[in-house]
């Protein structure tokens, strides 16, 4: 189905566009909310002080279930709105998806279990599970993204590649980049939400991870256009270049801001939002690259779509429910705002 051959005013044309934007928004919200959550997990073992570990966990304890729910929403929305993409991507990425799920299970229960253990060894074991699970889940999310961007072979409307297509240099590099980015989000989140020694340590980590992330953003940006001719065209043909040109400039502007915030020790929330800014820009750049494909290089958002009756039905509720969800999620964060230290009440 070629979008140019479609009725541009028909629901079958614009509904998938609306849903593509909504789905991208939902994925970004997931990255915003669960990114620092997973990142914090990765930094867990880097912080040997038990007291500090408990504080780290305490900053996310009341909200982690909600953060992970966005991942469930991603699966459900894809299933209902782009079922052909859902039915192609998941078998194609069967192993990385399942490894990610295993890792998320381990870190999720480790979170609850670690504080209920009666021996130090058992607690250490679940601490390792929390850290390792967070790391593996992050790596797999990057690998899934990288494999998708590299392209998935489809024949007969079905996945036709091999089980190990994802074990390639580009996806693995993307995995490292996402893990590094999440760790940065975790470190900057802790700069915002904690104080004293722990905050100082996290400033150091944020500095190292910022440099690493910048290098990785540059590398992925240079690598991606080389994957497909169409990607290259996005970055070299006029007037498309107009949309993408501000992206690198903004990345550098944020880097300067981040550096000042980490050094100047001024506002503690700036580094977190700088890191989010990097994610937003990388994510937008990626969107521009693969548009209008949802499973590059051959399945567009229109080909992946469920019938308009399905997309309309879900959209009608989403318009009201999504703002409501964001409102009470914000309220939950508001209730548990403020710096967390070992004297804070609630949880550990």
């Amino acid at each position, binding site marked *: 189905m070629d979008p140019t051959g479609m009725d541009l005013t028909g629901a079958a044309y614009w509904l998938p566009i609306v849903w593509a934007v909504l789905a991208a928004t939902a994925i970004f919200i997931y990255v915003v909310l669960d990114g620092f959550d997973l990142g914090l997990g990765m930094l867990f073992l880097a912080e040997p002080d038990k*007291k500090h570990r408990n504080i780290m966990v305490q900053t996310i304890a009341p909200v982690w279930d909600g953060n992970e729910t966005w991942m469930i929403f991603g699966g459900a929305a894809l*299933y*209902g*709105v782009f079922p052909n993409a859902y039915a192609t991507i998941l078998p194609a990425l069967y192993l990385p998806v399942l490894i990610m799920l295993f890792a998320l299970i381990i870190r999720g229960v480790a979170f609850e279990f670690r*504080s209920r253990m009666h*021996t130090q060894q058992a607690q250490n074991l679940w601490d390792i599970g929390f850290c390792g699970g967070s790391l593996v889940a992050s790596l797999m999310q990057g690998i899934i993204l990288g494999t998708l961007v590299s392209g998935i072979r489809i024949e007969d409307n079905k996945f036709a590649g091999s089980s190990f297509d994802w074990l390639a240099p580009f996806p693995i590099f993307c995995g490292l980049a996402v893990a590094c980015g999440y760790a940065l989000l975790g470190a900057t989140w802790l700069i915002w939400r904690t104080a004293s020694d722990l905050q100082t340590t996290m400033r150091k980590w944020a500095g190292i991870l910022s440099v690493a992330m910048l290098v990785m953003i540059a590398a992925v940006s240079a690598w991606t256009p080389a994957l497909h001719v169409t990607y290259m065209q996005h970055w070299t043909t006029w007037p498309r270049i107009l949309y993408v040109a501000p992206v690198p400039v903004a990345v550098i502007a944020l880097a300067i801001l981040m550096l000042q915030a980490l050094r100047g020790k001024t506002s503690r929330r700036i580094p977190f939002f700088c890191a989010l800014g990097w994610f937003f820009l990388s994510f937008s750049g990626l969107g521009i690259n693969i548009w209008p494909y949802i499973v590059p290089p051959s399945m567009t958002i229109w080909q992946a779509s*469920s019938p308009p009756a399905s997309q309309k039905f879900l959209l009608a509720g989403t318009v009201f*429910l999504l703002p409501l969800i964001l409102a009470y999620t914000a309220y939950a964060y508001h209730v548990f705002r403020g710096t967390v230290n*070992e004297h804070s*009440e609630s949880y550990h």
Partner: protein
Amino acid sequence: MTGADAIFLARLQFAFTVGFHIVFPAFSIGLAAFLAVLEGLWLKTDKQVYLDLFHYWLRAFSIVFGMGVVSGLVMSYEFGTNWAQFSQKAGPILGPLLGYEVMTAFFLEAGFLGIMLFGMNKVGKKLHFFATCVVSLGTLISMSWILSSNSWMQTPRGYSIEPGTGRFIPQDWWAIVFNPSFPFRLVHMALAAFLSVAFIVGGVGAWHLLRARRAGRQPTEAVRVMFSMAMWMAALVGPLQILAGDAHGLNTLKYQPAKIAAMEGDWDSEGYAPELLFGIPDMKNETTHYKIAIPYAGSLILTHSLSGKVPGLKDYPKDQRAPSYVVFFSFRIMIALGMLMAATGLFSLWLRRKGTLWSNPLLLRTALILTPAGFIALLCGWVTTEVGRQPFTVYGLLRTADSASPVPGASIATTLAIFVVLYVIVFTSGISILLRGFAEEPHRDQAGPDARQPQRAASMASAISDTAASGHTGSANPGSGE
């Protein structure tokens, strides 16, 4: 490995993961409602015992809910990983329902769970009670959506099939959501969740009552209250569930008679049919061996008349019969446990009148043995309805064999093995944490999940006691309670 093997493995994996998962949402549904009632009673009467019980069960809730979230996450992707063709064809109908479940229920539960677990001192009593009620409401909304989806797969309505692609196209959402088996399945499942949790609470209560009896001391008020509440629930819901189950059975007879034939192990359609208490269905030779039957009871139960005609498996082509040797037994285990639970509830009513509710050893021991009975019955019921739907995923329309993903059997076998190992670790750890919590008697000034640290420090003594030093009120130390 052949395609049939891969499909079998995909089914096994799906059944294993969903079977593990289903326990936790059911537990959450019942427990959240119980917690809302406890907190409401506390606010109304200002009696400390209700707050103590609330905190006691809230600690279990955070574990149960967390395990429900992580095992549920798997489900939202497993439709695609294991059942790609099914997702492609039924996604336009079931996907939006799942989307609504996440938006109207999961977010609601997760959004207010933090406040429910840790927010009492931050938001005040009333808002906290509101959060507890919202979480409970969320569990009920979630159940409604998922049972609507599941019921649509059993009794599909409101669709058309797109020529060429074979996709189900939604025509009437009202008919899809409120398909014929949905109301029956919803009530049956809700009662099952309440009954399961009633027997968990009752079992824990019975254990502490028995322990107090053996030690020759009076049980605490909290223990008596929770056992009494659990037995009220058993007495009310147990018999009600039998009626609901009967109505659900009649609904199945109307819309899925082949499933009933498989459940009953009946081969020939006949009037004045017996009810089999035992037998071994033999799919190959089209008979049921070693039958122990009650004359006329089959017709009486299914049609509410002695002469009523019940369906037989031979009415249906061989390739449309569900495996009777599975559902015949799962159905009977469910019924037996349901009867036992209802009888226990009624027995407790009688003892309550006599004034020996808290001391009758037969009731206490029965309640203790039946602790997991609700969940076992629930799983058996789920096996009955799902295996009874075979060989279809969408009843009568889409075969399981035409629903699978193009994933090699080796991948599925490997991940299935990992799932088993992982879930055994997670399940045993979770259960042992729950049991350790239940082994403690609820007592005055019971600590909730927000005071875990001092509790742990008390048992781990040296290592991390300094973290517990401040920030908690002195009374929140359970170690001093007993």
